[in-house]
């Protein structure tokens, strides 16, 4: 009995870790497997099309993780997070085509640039709070976006830029090498996850969580919310820049959409979909959204939809209509997003167990509040 309980506890503690590790291994093996998931992936998992789609999912999942650090951990609603993603993508793209720097040096320079940009803009934007903060970050991102569309000689305007493959390692070039890019995306996603985990678990992360709740209280304790938020903001910016770089390689280029505020809203949607404040939720949100976004287009084009009567066909042939509706349904009917819903299910179950365990003792001291039973 006790042994069973012990092993159960161990499982509970290390369960998420084991599940995570298994998932990473499975993901790493996918390019070698022939798994078909109809409707979700365009083809068997070893094919470049499926791998490209999954890689894109991972890029956005990494981006969502970085955004969760802002919104979930520190309560910062930014409308300009795309700026750092775009900075990473455009930065690397321009470095590769304009300078002779070796590939890895270019990525290093790009990351440092992304970090510096986040530090600078964060230092200004974080002087404001709430909706004003959201708007200042939006303004910064729009400035970036205008810059990109105005300086076509550098950024290619709305055509965007394509990767100069001369400086890119051969392993990352070509459709047949999509699997290498896929592994790169996986590595970056895992790294970003670990950094997010690290930040959340550190003292800084705890202070950031408190910042989210009540800044004045924090200051009265002698802490500096500004410093805390700036560090988190910079880390999130760095992570976004890394995601942007993978995106550039994966898509063989980058366009102005990558700095657009639509992208920030999209990322926000992913985080909420997954559950604000849950790291694994951000990843799930990134995957679910990207898959829906990409695959609903295919569904909207399908013959099944084509043969429907007009009042059904017209809305269903618009992928964004489907996406919008799915999104609304998720927001309305699963408070706390996917992760939040799952989490409260698990907790409710645990709660029952704890409450049952506590019952025999409860009769003794009535004035002390007992664990409350949830319905």
């Amino acid at each position, binding site marked *: 009995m006790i042994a069973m309980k012990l092993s159960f506890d161990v499982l509970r503690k290390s369960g998420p870790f084991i599940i995570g590790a298994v998932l990473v291994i499975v993901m790493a093996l996918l390019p070698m497997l022939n798994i078909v998931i109809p409707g979700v992936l365009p083809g068997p998992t070893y094919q470049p099309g499926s791998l490209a789609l999954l890689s894109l999912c991972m890029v956005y999942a990494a981006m969502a993780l970085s955004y969760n650090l802002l919104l979930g951990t520190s309560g910062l609603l930014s409308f300009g997070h795309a700026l750092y993603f775009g900075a990473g993508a455009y930065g690397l793209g321009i470095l590769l085509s304009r300078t002779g720097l070796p590939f890895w040096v270019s990525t290093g320079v790009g990351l440092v640039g992304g970090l510096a940009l986040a530090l600078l803009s964060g230092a200004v934007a974080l002087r404001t709070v709430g909706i004003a903060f959201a708007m200042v970050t939006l303004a910064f991102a729009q400035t970036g976006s205008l810059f990109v569309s105005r300086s076509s000689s550098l950024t290619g305007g709305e055509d965007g830029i394509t990767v100069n493959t001369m400086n890119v390692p051969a392993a990352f070039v070509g459709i047949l090498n999509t699997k290498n890019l896929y592994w790169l995306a996986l590595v970056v996603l895992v790294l970003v996850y670990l950094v997010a985990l690290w930040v959340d678990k550190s*003292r*800084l992360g705890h202070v950031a969580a408190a910042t989210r709740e*009540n800044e004045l209280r924090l200051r009265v304790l002698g802490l500096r919310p500004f410093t805390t938020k700036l560090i988190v903001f910079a880390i999130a910016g760095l992570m976004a820049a890394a995601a942007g770089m993978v995106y550039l390689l994966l898509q063989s280029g980058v366009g102005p959409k990558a700095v657009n505020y639509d992208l920030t809203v999209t990322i926000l949607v992913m985080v909420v979909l997954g559950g604000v404040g849950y790291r694994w939720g951000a990843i799930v949100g990134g995957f679910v959204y990207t898959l829906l976004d990409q695959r609903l287009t295919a569904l909207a084009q399908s013959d099944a939809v084509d043969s429907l009567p007009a009042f059904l066909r017209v809305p269903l042939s618009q992928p964004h209509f489907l996406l919008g509706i799915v999104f609304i349904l998720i927001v309305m009917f699963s408070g706390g997003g996917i992760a939040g819903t799952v989490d409260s299910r698990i907790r409710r179950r645990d709660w029952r167990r704890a409450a049952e365990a506590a019952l025999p003792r409860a009769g003794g001291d009535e004035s002390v509040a007992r664990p409350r039973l949830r319905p």
Partner: protein
Amino acid sequence: MMNTPHSALKIEGLGLQIGGATILKDVELDIMPGARVGVIGPNGAGKTTLFNAISGVVRPTSGRILMDGRDVTRLDVSKRARMGLGRTFQTSSIFPKLTIFENVRLAAQVSLGGNYSLLRFPRRSDAASRLAAETIEKVGLIHQQDAFAGEVSHGDKRKLEIAVLMVTDARVVLLDEPMAGVASGEVAALTENIRSMHAEQQSTLLMVEHHIDVLMGLVDKVAVMYSGTVLAFDTPQNIMNNPLVQSAYLGTSA
């Protein structure tokens, strides 16, 4: 009182105006280290505002505030806190989505340093956690320690405020109506906690409280505020016998 460098807290000619309204006017106070001072006065007299000015939450429009002889009038809230100023709020100010334990733990951790560190991780077994657990036990919140602070009853939030203050090693402590809403059965225990905190930390204590019996049993000096200014600063007995206090504050002489 002489202008000695020993004053733990000295307030000189403090004034505050918002719009056209005068909230504080020529407030003078000189408090020696280790003193326990009660602050009373009718509602709206400016007691909370005085605490806000001392802790830096509002900027006074005139006058100076000195801690240990150092002028802190222009310093930021968090800087003052780091210099050893601690306070509670009249309306409980907590981190609602952190648990009671996390609330206290965070406060306990502050003085250990490394608050912005990415290389240190809070643990259930470290010094801050142990101190937090002890203190939660002391204020009688142990059965609630894993509840979110935003989800406990009003009275329990008041106890949390005190617990948070107890784990910081503040040298100057401002308590704003700590007993408001605390169950009558628990007032005595909480009073005892405040007393022992003061004794252990050898701090200087300022306390606003309308629960006049509790206050008088706890402090050795009382300041009376009225319309934004300090009218009297004297021993509890003298204050209780002051006719103005009786008529305007206690309403007993009528």
